[in-house]
């Protein structure tokens, strides 16, 4: 045994620690499951953003695969993902918006300026519906199946990568299911 063998102990201990930390990195905090996954979407009824006299509710999601995107004009990350949502809409995905703790004029101006990917927006001024849906930051995006059951929750700004590899395949799969 060479003379330095016993002085290798700190290095070996460190390498074991690194292996642990590496393993820790692969446990992605974004995949922490929402308790709402595979549960019916929480019931809500809110005035629409553009036409406050009309209401949006779970009934609008029935029978078709739908995305619900939680956003606000004060949210910088929402601005990042907005163009990606516009792209997603062009590919024929139904997107509803939940305009979260926002002001009507600001939200309408935002949609005029950056484009409107939403079929309609529910206006959640005091954030109560957001609480029921377990929203703890914007943006968040829920994927809801034909039966109105939440199948996926995406936390943070949607990237093009996530659209290609997560959202579109899931939407396709849910559409083919009966």
């Amino acid at each position, binding site marked *: 045994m060479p003379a330095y063998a016993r002085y290798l102990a*700190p290095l070996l201990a460190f390498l074991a620690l690194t292996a642990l930390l590496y393993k*820790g990195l692969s446990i992605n905090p974004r995949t922490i499951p929402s308790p709402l996954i595979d549960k019916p979407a929480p019931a809500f009824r809110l005035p629409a953003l553009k036409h406050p006299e009309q209401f949006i509710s779970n009934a609008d999601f029935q029978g078709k695969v739908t995305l619900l995107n939680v956003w606000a004009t004060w949210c910088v990350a929402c601005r990042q993902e907005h163009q990606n949502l516009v792209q997603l809409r062009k590919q024929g995905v139904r997107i509803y918006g939940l305009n979260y703790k926002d002001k009507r004029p600001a939200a309408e101006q935002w949609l005029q300026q950056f484009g409107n990917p939403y079929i309609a927006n529910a206006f959640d001024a005091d954030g109560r519906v957001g609480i029921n849906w377990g929203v703890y930051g914007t943006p968040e995006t829920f994927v809801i199946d034909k039966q109105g059951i939440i199948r996926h929750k995406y936390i943070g700004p949607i990237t093009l990568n996530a659209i290609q590899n997560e959202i579109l395949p899931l939407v396709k799969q849910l559409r083919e299911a009966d």
Partner: protein
Amino acid sequence: MIPELGHFALILALCLAVVQAIFPLIGSLNRTPSWTAMARPLAYGQFVFLAFAFAALVHAFLTDDFSVLYVAQNGNTEMPTIYKVSAVWGAHEGSLLLWAFILSIWMIAVAAFTRSLPDEMVARVLSVMGMISIGFLSFLLFTSNPFARIFPAPLQGAELNPLLQDFGLAIHPPMLYMGYVGMSVAFSFAIAALIGGKLDNAWARWSRPWTLVAWMFLGTGIVLGSWWAYNELGWGGWWFWDPVENASFMPWLAGTALVHSLAVTEKRGAFKRWTVLLALLAFSLSLMGTFLVRSGVLTSVHAFASDPARGMFILVFLMVVIGSSLLLYALRAPSISRGGGFDALSRETLLLGNNLILIVITALVLLGTLAPLIYDAFNWGKISVGFPWFSTMFITFTPLMILLMGAAPLTRWKHQDGGELLRQLRLALLLSVAAAIVVALPFAADNGAAGVAVGLSVWLLTTLLTSAWRRLRHHGGISALIADFSSRGGRSYYGMWIAHLGVAIFIIGVTFVTQFDIRKDVRMSPAQEIVVNGYRFRFDGVTPRQGPNYVAQRGTIHVSRNGHEVAVLHPEKRTYNMKSRPMTEAGIDVGLFRDIYVSLGEPLKGGDWALRLYYKPMVRWIWLGGLLTALGGLLSASDPRYRLRVLAKVTGRDVPSNTLAAGEQA
């Protein structure tokens, strides 16, 4: 334009770091003076570019340039100026830039204050620091560019996390980073010595003041963080064993072991392998702290920004830096000489004992911090290691450490006669046991812990007084004290004295606040009065108040005792304009012997409010003790002996090299 210049300055700093990491080191190995001489100018150059980059980011915040993504995420036009500046290090990218900037400050400090050291040594130290700098600057540029633009620019920024809008937290990260990064100097000295194969007393003497200063900053940073948590989190706690707190506490513990071990190596030439390993460990734990905080591996209340890709980068960086340094250690350690021997009872033994205890505590803190991760990795389920586990661990090991700590300053180097030591300690032992009994007895069983803690604190205090008395007994008066203070080794001794006194005060604070604090959660209607521990609290309702960037519900509570008004407290519940989560701001009446702490809960029906009232005895002593300990470190570092050697060396030089030195300075 200015952000782009800042970005450009970062790139140039990285280029300089690469040159600094390679050429001075090679120059020192093949003895090429022109290459070793490059180290200092390169360090100064890096500092200039990083200072520019940092100033550019500050400028972007001050001018509310929301076209910079980082500013848009953390800045806001309505924030007070001080928080616009502190927002620079309020999130991931900016705090890394601060890290790199502070590293360059330490580099120029090393470059400027090491004129008496051999050029080869300085070149190696600065080269190692250059390597660390490469890691951080590439991390910044490749994964976390603070100058990235966003288009179109938002009209208003998202604002700094309101939790961080507090004076304590504005200065806490720079202090902490000065400490974290300062440990890189001790680390670089250790690596440089390992490369040269020469670990001697001189190496320990060079490293010691740097380590002490870094340790002082680290301690101050931790104290500030604790003070912030107490003020801002609204539940009266001062330490939570949160992963991020632990991340700063572990390097401090290792640093504490290191400053003591360095003392032994400097004075007696012993413990060399151990000291060099501690120097590597202290900085490794600083880097690990950065990894834990920034990678999102551990979920924590502090995890404001976390990203797995960034985590991967830091992990690889950790592997390279720590892995290669430990490999170098393994290769060189066998050839390090053993140094001075010592008997079973000697100051060396006591210091070694305390070193081991400190490292055991560090290891246990690391284990507790990583336990959730270990469980996850092996699929054993989810656990969280909380307060009780850490407290038990701490209470088990600290008493033994305090016992050794009291005895060590009275013990001789190399050999100590047991009987003589006992005679010196007799009085201190008697007094501390008496104090323990006096505190523990009147309240019986419940106060055993308080009795032990007070006993330990008195033990520290009396042994310190004994030691000072022995030192000064042959010369009386204040003038003798002053002469002793300014003598060689004087400040080193009094630094130790004050640092240990700080620990005694800290123990008192922790014991009293944990054993005797009183908490009442109450529902109060306006004009209602409640008495807690002799203090009468009158609730005078809640009124709205408009702050610079928030609206607050501001409560008014009159506190009186024996009919005299003690304080009027205004706890607040703030809602910041850009964030919807309300923040609590406690109302605190500060006192040396007690704090009165009121925090505002939820509004209830009919104008009633839920309130939390605290009586916290001696809580200030926790931070006072912590600050004294840090101050002790600073005092030790300023000991004239570190400068005297410098003078001796300069005057000892022959004429040509003396003129060379003068030329260098010009």
